[in-house]
């Protein structure tokens, strides 16, 4: 089952394999990203970073959703990694099991605004967040499991840009 879905624009890195994987006893990491899934170089790099205790699957969004819906996914402790709020929304739309989305890191880009020390969102992101909230999902900011959860609610996204 899906233990966590995390938005992190670095996808798999030290924080993830060091803290989330052991803390949630993850044995299967699914990276859902259309670009990475077709980029042999990135796939290779991510495979170097794979923690030994979990297997790593790199899929396009479509394939990732198919995999997560499959019965095989039931018996595994899965961590899903996406690198944007848009991708998180695409996955959450299809998988009802997902009730919470973890915001791990979204770097600063032009037109964006920091809402927490490691999360920057722009106007597009706000639309996606609104949709996620309307679907009744809990959106929480936490870099590592021991951090205090900061919940993203409508007050966070209504800050005038």
């Amino acid at each position, binding site marked *: 089952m899906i233990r966590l879905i995390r938005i992190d624009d670095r996808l*798999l*890195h*030290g924080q993830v*394999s*060091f*803290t989330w994987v052991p*803390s949630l006893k993850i044995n299967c990491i699914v990276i859902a990203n259309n670009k990475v899934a077709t980029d042999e170089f990135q796939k290779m*790099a991510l*495979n170097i970073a794979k923690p030994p205790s979990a297997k790593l699957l790199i899929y396009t969004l479509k394939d990732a959703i198919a995999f997560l819906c499959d019965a095989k996914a039931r018996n595994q402790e899965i961590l899903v990694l996406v690198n944007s709020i848009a991708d998180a929304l695409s996955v959450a739309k299809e998988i009802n099991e997902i009730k919470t989305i973890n915001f791990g890191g979204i770097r600063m880009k032009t037109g964006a605004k920091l809402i927490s*020390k490691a999360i920057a969102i722009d106007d597009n992101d706000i639309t996606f967040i609104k949709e996620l909230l309307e679907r009744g999902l809990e959106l929480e900011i936490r870099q590592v499991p021991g951090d205090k959860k900061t919940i993203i609610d409508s007050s966070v996204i209504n800050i005038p840009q």
Partner: protein
Amino acid sequence: MTVEYLLITAVVMFGHMEDFLGAALFSRPLVLGPLVGLALGDPVQGIIIGATLELIFMGNIKVGAAIPPDVITGGALGTAFAIMSGNGAEIALAIAIPVSIIAEIIISGLFVVRPALNSRFEKYAAEGNFKKIEVLHVASGLTKPLLMGTLAFLALQLGDEAMQTFLNSIPAWVQSGLSVAGSMLPAVGFAMLMNLMFNKHAAVYFFLGFILASYLKLPMIAIGALGIIIAIIITGAAGNSTDSEEYSNDDEQEPVADRQITKRDLRKVFFRSLALEANFNFETWQNTGFAYSIIPVLKKLYHTKEQMSSALRRHLQFFNTTAHGSTLILGITAAMEEQNSTSGDFDTESINAVKSGLMGPLAGVFDSLFWGTLKVIAAGIGVSLAMDGNMLGPLLFILIFNIPHFSLRYYMTFAGYNTGNRFLQNLARSGIMAKLTSGATILGLMVIGAMPVILMPLKTPITIGTQGSEVSLQMILDQLAPGLLSLALTFFAFWLVRRNIKTTWILLGILVLGFVGSILNIFI
């Protein structure tokens, strides 16, 4: 006292200069403790206090954005106040914990404020003015040592007398309570380290380390050495690799017609990479450090303002990876920049694609290698010697970490440049990373398994039986396994860590447990 205050301030500033020294552990309590001791004329006490603080802050590592308590300021001030008031490690600890938490908040503030400089960096980049970028990067990097140094000096100048009076008024029972609690706190550090590596398959190595220390009374160095041997045997790293021939061809350098970047340039990149985190901030992270490090290459390759400007802007984009392994990406980037400068149709987008594609995965590898394993072994051996005031402790601590660290960091600058992507492909294909990680886990767990016994001697004065025929509980426990209480406490802390309870709470909980245990005479 002012001379001493100034010397201690210098130690704090030296500690915070770590951002220019490549995160080489010079800022750890085990190193700063002896320096503070030296400043106050009591280096041995400094070593002992440094060892105690090192133990308690052992699990305190910097991964990603998680900023740990500032053990530099907290540790140095704690050590200083303890020595000046003629007290021991328990007082140093009582000061170090709160001070390091307050100092962490101040430093986080600095990391929030620094992004204000970003528009300035971008302006300089647009002008192609790399000199100003270098100056601003270094200047911003100096704010942390200057700020924390000033605060430390003020704390000493204004707080010393009050602190001494306060410390002298602490009743003896509180002191002994603190001392017991302090001797139990390392369990939290051990637990945090276990959390990184402990799993069903590797658990045996933890217990092997425990048995070697508990029954066979082997010193930490021997356990570390055995750990290396066992790791090599298990991962088969010593055997002749059958596929070594298969990829040896790939290592041959492609003949490159026009190499402009010299060894000297790459050496500069290596040295500059030590300042990667000087302007660390919460918006763009190590970006200016990356630009600063790659500038010697850019200077060689680009001679017009336009070229330099677009290259600088390229390298001011968000960057974050393990500092120790950053040179691999810098080397690869240098090779790509060189290609770009000679061929007209090079896609510059690919440079940042490679950078951002590699920084996360490599951080995963290098975090576990440097923070998860190398530092643990260095600290295990260093602390075990330093607890008795042995100067070899801090020295070995620095050497065990930094000989592999600086050799790898230097080598990877060149490997990244010369063989670049093929170096990574070889890494991936040869499965050497998987071997390294599992070998590191074996070694790390053996050392951690030995730690509770060697580094956290915990005893109980409880006796059982009726008067006249009492039996010491400790004696019974020792017959089962020496160090059993320490092991039990470590597993208790580990259980709490696994339940995602925040470290500060676990620390406080154990502090209370030790205090109450001391008053009720359950632990000594």
